[in-house]
C-alpha cells in the first residue's frame, strides 16, 4: 500500500501548553483519512505541521517523500488545503480568487472549467462577503484543488453549514477523492467522520487513542447493541437466558437489553415466543459517538 503521509512521534508545544504530545499515523494514497476530536485536541496543529505551515518541536513528518519543515516550497501545488477559519478579502470576486490562486502554479488552470466543476459559474462576479456558507466552501474546495494536488487537507470544512449544505459538501469531498486526491479530513462531527472517512483517527489530548475504519472501530469498541421496548407490565426476565445478552434492565416500564450485535434477532424471537409484541421495539446500533465515549471517557459535547 502506497503511503503518502507518514507522521511519526509528532510533538508540538506552545509555551507551556502541549498541543500535540505524541502523534503517529500513516495515510494511504487515495483514501479519505479522518482526524476526529474535540477543539484543542491537537488536530489542526497536526495538519498544519503536515502542510509545513507550523514548525514542530519533535518527531518526523514525511509528505510525498518531502519533509514539510525543511522544504515546504517543494510541496506547493502538490498539497492543497482548506484551512479552518480562513477567508478571502471581502470584496474579492469568485473568478478573481481562482485566477489569483492559480497564478504561480506550474499547471495551467482553466478558470471557466473550474467554475463549472464546482458549480460556481453563476456567482463568478460575486464578492466573497456576499457568498453563502455553501458557496464559500465550494470556492475553498475549488482553490484547494487547483492544479490537481495529490494530497488535500480539509480542516473543519463543514463547520457553520446547515445540515443540507453539509451533506452536499460531503458529496464534494467524495468527488475530490474520486478525482485521485488523497484527503485528510479534520472534523469534530461524528457523523461526518463515520460516513465520509475510510479510516478515522480519534485524537484526544494531543494523542491518537484509536485508529481504524469506522466499521472496525464500532465493531471493536462499540459495546454491542441496545434493544429497547415497553414490556406492558410483563416479566421479561427470560431474556437474560438468550445467548449473547449481557444485561436486562427495566426503568419505568421501558426495558433495555444490552447484547452483542447478533443477539438482536434471537431476543425479538424470544419475545414473540412469549406472546409479547411490543409496538416500540427498537435496535440501537452503536455509532462512532459510542466509540468516542469508550476510548476518551467523555462525549464530544462534554469536551468541547
Amino acid at each position, binding site marked *: 500500500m502506497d503511503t503518502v503521509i507518514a507522521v511519526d512521534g509528532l510533538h508540538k508545544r506552545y509555551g507551556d501548553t502541549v498541543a500535540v504530545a505524541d502523534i503517529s499515523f500513516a495515510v494511504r*494514497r*487515495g483514501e479519505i483519512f479522518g482526524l476526529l476530536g474535540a477543539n484543542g485536541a491537537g488536530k489542526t496543529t497536526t495538519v498544519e505541521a503536515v*502542510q*509545513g*505551515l*507550523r*514548525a514542530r518541536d519533535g518527531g518526523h513528518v514525511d509528505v510525498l517523500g518531502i519533509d514539510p519543515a525543511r*522544504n*515546504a*516550497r*517543494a510541496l*506547493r*501545488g*502538490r498539497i492543497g*488545503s482548506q*484551512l479552518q*477559519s*480562513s*477567508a*478571502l*478579502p*471581502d*470584496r*474579492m470576486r469568485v473568478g*478573481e480568487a481562482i*485566477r*489569483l*490562486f492559480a*497564478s*504561480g*502554479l*506550474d*499547471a495551467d488552470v482553466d478558470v471557466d472549467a473550474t467554475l463549472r*466543476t*464546482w*458549480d460556481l459559474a453563476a456567482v463568478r462576479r460575486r464578492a466573497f462577503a456576499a457568498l453563502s456558507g455553501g458557496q464559500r466552501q*465550494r470556492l475553498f474546495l475549488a*482553490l484547494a484543488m487547483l492544479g*490537481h494536488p*495529490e494530497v488535500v487537507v480539509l480542516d473543519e470544512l463543514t463547520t457553520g453549514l446547515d445540515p443540507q449544505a453539509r451533506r*452536499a459538501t460531503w*458529496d*464534494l469531498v467524495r*468527488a475530490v477523492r*474520486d*478525482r*485521485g*486526491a*488523497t484527503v485528510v479530513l479534520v472534523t469534530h462531527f461524528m457523523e461526518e467522520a463515520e460516513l465520509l472517512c475510510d479510516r478515522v483517527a480519534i485524537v484526544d489530548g494531543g494523542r491518537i487513542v484509536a485508529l481504524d475504519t469506522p466499521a472496525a472501530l464500532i465493531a471493536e469498541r462499540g459495546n454491542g447493541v441496545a434493544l429497547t421496548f415497553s414490556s406492558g407490565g410483563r416479566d421479561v426476565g427470560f431474556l437474560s437466558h438468550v445467548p449473547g445478552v449481557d444485561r436486562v434492565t427495566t426503568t419505568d416500564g421501558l426495558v433495555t437489553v444490552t447484547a452483542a450485535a447478533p443477539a438482536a434477532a434471537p431476543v425479538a424471537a424470544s419475545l414473540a415466543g412469549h406472546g409479547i409484541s411490543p409496538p416500540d421495539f427498537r435496535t440501537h446500533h452503536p455509532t462512532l459517538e459510542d466509540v468516542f465515549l469508550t476510548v476518551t471517557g467523555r462525549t464530544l459535547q462534554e469536551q468541547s
Partner: protein
Amino acid sequence: MTTLDTRPPTSSATPPRTGGRPPGRTAALTRAELKLLLREPLTTIVGVLFPAVLMVLLVGAFGNEPDPAMGGVGGADFYVPVYAAATIAVLGFMSIPTHLASYRESGVLRRLRAAGVPATAIVVAQAATMALLVLVGVALMLAIGFAAYDLSTPVSAAGVATGFAAGTAAFAGIGVLLGSLMSTARAAQGVGLVLFFGLFFISGGGPPPDLMPGVLNDAVRFTPMGPLVSAIRDPWHGAGWNIAALGALATIAVVSTAIAIRRFSRR
C-alpha cells in the same frame, strides 16, 4: 445538484515539481490588491483626500506671502510639500497596517500562506498599492497648489521626486512592519492614529517650526517624519538634496521591510 466530472486519478502522472519560484504570483496579488482598492473607496478617501483637505484649510489661512516664521517661504510653499508627505505618512502609519491586520484577523493571511504565496509577494503588493495612491494624492495636491495658491515650482524636481520615492519606500516598510505586528485591525488603527497625529503636527504639518518649542523640533528629527519632510522640502526650496534624510529613509525602508518579510514568513 452539483455536477462533477470524475476523471481518473492524475496524481501519479503528475511530474514532481521543483521548488523554483513560481512566476506571476507577486504580479497577480498586486493586481488583485489594486482592484480591491478601487472597490474600497474609504481607504482612498482617507489616504488621499484627507491630507488634501487639511492642506487647503491651512494654506487658505496662511496664503503664500513669504513668512519669516516659515523660514521666509510662503504658506503654500511651506505646507504643500508637507501635506504631500502627509499622504505618505497616512498610508504607512494607518492604511497598510490596518489592511494587513484585518487580513490577519479574518484569516486571509492564513489562506494566502497555505497557498504558498511568499511573504515578499504580500509586501510588494502593499508597496505597489501605496505607490499608486501616493502618485494620485500628490498629483491632486500639486494641482490644487498650482491652480489655487500660486505654489512655486520645485527648485530641484528630481530631488523632490527622489524624496517622494525614498519616503514612499520607507513608509511602505513601516506599514508592512506595523501590519506584521498588529493582531487586530482596531489596534492597528489606534496605533496608526497616535503615530500619525503625534508626529505629523510637530513635523511641520501644524504650526510653523519657528513657533514651536525647540525641543520638539529636535525630537521630530529622530522620528521617520523628520527625514520624510526634509527629503521633500529641502530640494523643493533650493536647499539641495538632503542626503542624510534620504539615507535615513533608505535605511528605514530596508530594515523594516526585511523584518516584516521575516515575520510574515515565520511559522
